[in-house]
């Protein structure tokens, strides 16, 4: 009698995408209403009668019948997608067209097309992510606001505006479109940011953040399970997610405090995820393309393949960072490269490399910039300077977890 975890959420995305394909994107609000209605009926019925044999089919049938009612009643007044409209005009073709839209193949296709539609170039990355969570993962405004530690009003405004942009099209994004490659990059970037929000984000609740990582991986899996759409960079991003997710359980201790990477209990890492990540990383090397996802996944794999922190091949990691800097330079990556260099050549060399980072000022509000300086100063015995650096970092901390972590580093310096 158990439902799969997040079953309602994920079915919501499948149904709303299918109905949007039928009614047209400009009728998205109608698709949402019909979906919501199907879920209310499911809840009312199942809570008393128990789960049907095939809950997914039950929901689909309920939504399909409701769609047929609406299309019979309103016909083309409701349908704006030109190719579909003519099939929906006569009863003769209406039923088979709607049946076809609800076939497993078409539902999966609509779901992916919706994902690409959400990453409209006129929407900011934040809006794209909010829209994906709202439409494809069935997150309410409240749930998104909680996950992003943002106000209800701000998220509501963001989603309302994004839906307006979405509704300016009539059709869902066509996966055979000439813009496919460019749009795929936006989709991957959105999923990458969604995962990172869960991994590094500001919500103090570990469960909330774990959910964001899970949703990003769920969406990523939809993408890589479509043989016609999958690209090496998609595999690389999926690999990166699996490697990082493997380490997720050890990033926080039982009290919810951040645990330094070097002190994480590696026996608690998810070894199935590491194996999956490795398999995906192998698949990602089939082409000639080398993206930031490839390099980041390769670095993550170096970490997860070391049984002990001391076994880490830092030299190899430094050269991977060199390659990453060559294709995607950024001050944060340069900072991480400096940390790797410090592991190989000592803290002085690390500090020296940080000093020459291009665009260093862009890190001025990033707490882990002064925290890294503190860490390296601590390692070379400059406790007083280290403490000052950690205090600066503390003043920039973005959430209680970071604050606790940095406070403990300051205490470490005091004890010396």
């Amino acid at each position, binding site marked *: *009698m158990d439902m799969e975890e*997040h*079953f309602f*959420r994920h079915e919501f995305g499948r149904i709303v995408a299918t109905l949007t394909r039928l009614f047209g994107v400009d009728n998205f609000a109608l698709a949402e209403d019909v979906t919501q209605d199907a879920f209310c009926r*499911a809840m*009312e019925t199942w*809570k*008393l*009668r128990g789960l049907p044999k095939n809950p997914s089919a039950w929901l689909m049938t309920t939504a399909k019948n409701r769609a047929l009612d609406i299309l019979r009643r309103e016909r083309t007044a409701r349908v704006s997608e030109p190719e579909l409209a003519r099939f929906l005009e006569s009863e003769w073709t209406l039923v088979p067209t709607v049946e076809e839209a609800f076939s497993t193949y078409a539902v999966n296709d609509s779901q992916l097309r919706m994902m690409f539609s959400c990453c409209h170039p006129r929407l900011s990355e934040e809006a794209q992510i909010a829209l994906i969570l709202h439409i494809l993962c069935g997150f*309410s405004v409240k749930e998104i606001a909680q996950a992003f530690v943002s106000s209800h009003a701000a998220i509501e405004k963001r989603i309302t505006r994004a839906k307006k942009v979405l509704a300016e099209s009539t059709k869902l994004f066509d996966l055979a479109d000439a813009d496919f490659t460019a749009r795929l990059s936006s989709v991957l970037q959105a999923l990458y940011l969604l995962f990172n929000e869960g991994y590094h984000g500001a919500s103090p609740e570990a469960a909330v953040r774990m959910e964001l990582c899970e949703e990003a991986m769920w969406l990523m899996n939809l993408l890589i399970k479509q043989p016609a759409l999958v690209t090496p960079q998609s595999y690389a991003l999926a690999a990166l997610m699996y490697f990082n997710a493997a380490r997720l359980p050890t990033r926080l201790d039982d009290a919810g405090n951040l645990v330094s990477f070097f002190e994480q209990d590696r026996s608690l890492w998810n070894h199935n995820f590491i194996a999956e990540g490795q398999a995906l990383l192998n698949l990602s090397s089939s082409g000639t393309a080398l993206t930031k996802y490839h390099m980041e996944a390769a670095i993550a794999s170096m970490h997860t393949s070391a049984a002990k922190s001391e076994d880490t091949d830092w030299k190899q990691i430094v050269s991977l960072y060199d390659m990453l800097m060559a294709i995607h330079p950024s001050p944060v990556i340069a900072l991480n490269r400096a940390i790797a260099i410090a592991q190989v050549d000592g803290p002085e060399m690390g500090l020296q490399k940080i000093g020459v980072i291009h665009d260093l000022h862009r890190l001025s509000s990033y707490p882990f910039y002064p925290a890294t300086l503190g860490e390296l100063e601590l390692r070379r015995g400059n406790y007083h300077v280290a403490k000052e650096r950690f205090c600066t970092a503390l003043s920039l901390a973005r959430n209680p977890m970071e604050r606790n972590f940095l406070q403990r580093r300051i205490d470490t310096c005091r004890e010396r």
Partner: protein
Amino acid sequence: MTEFVYLYRGYELPASPEEMQQKTAKWMIWLKELSDNGHLKSLGDPLQPGGKVIKGAKKQVIDGPYAEAKDVVGGYSIIVAKDIEQAVGFSLGCPIFEDGGSVEVRPIGQ
């Protein structure tokens, strides 16, 4: 042992699919426990919102059942209990109370 009907009245619907799933699961767990203990005669049925009320000598048909959402019966179950006190006791675990709804406990005529 006497049979009782639980009439479930008006409550707020959860806003998100995730909350709906959790709520559905809570109801199923509550009813399963009643059933496992032999106190459930029938899971009952949900009643869809809307309908008609026919009344008076003129048999006037109006849209119903009630204007107030909180008064609308959303479903029922039939349970078996020693007496009304026990039947009331069993109802206390119903998840409907978390959402502002009510349970009306009525002995079934014998």
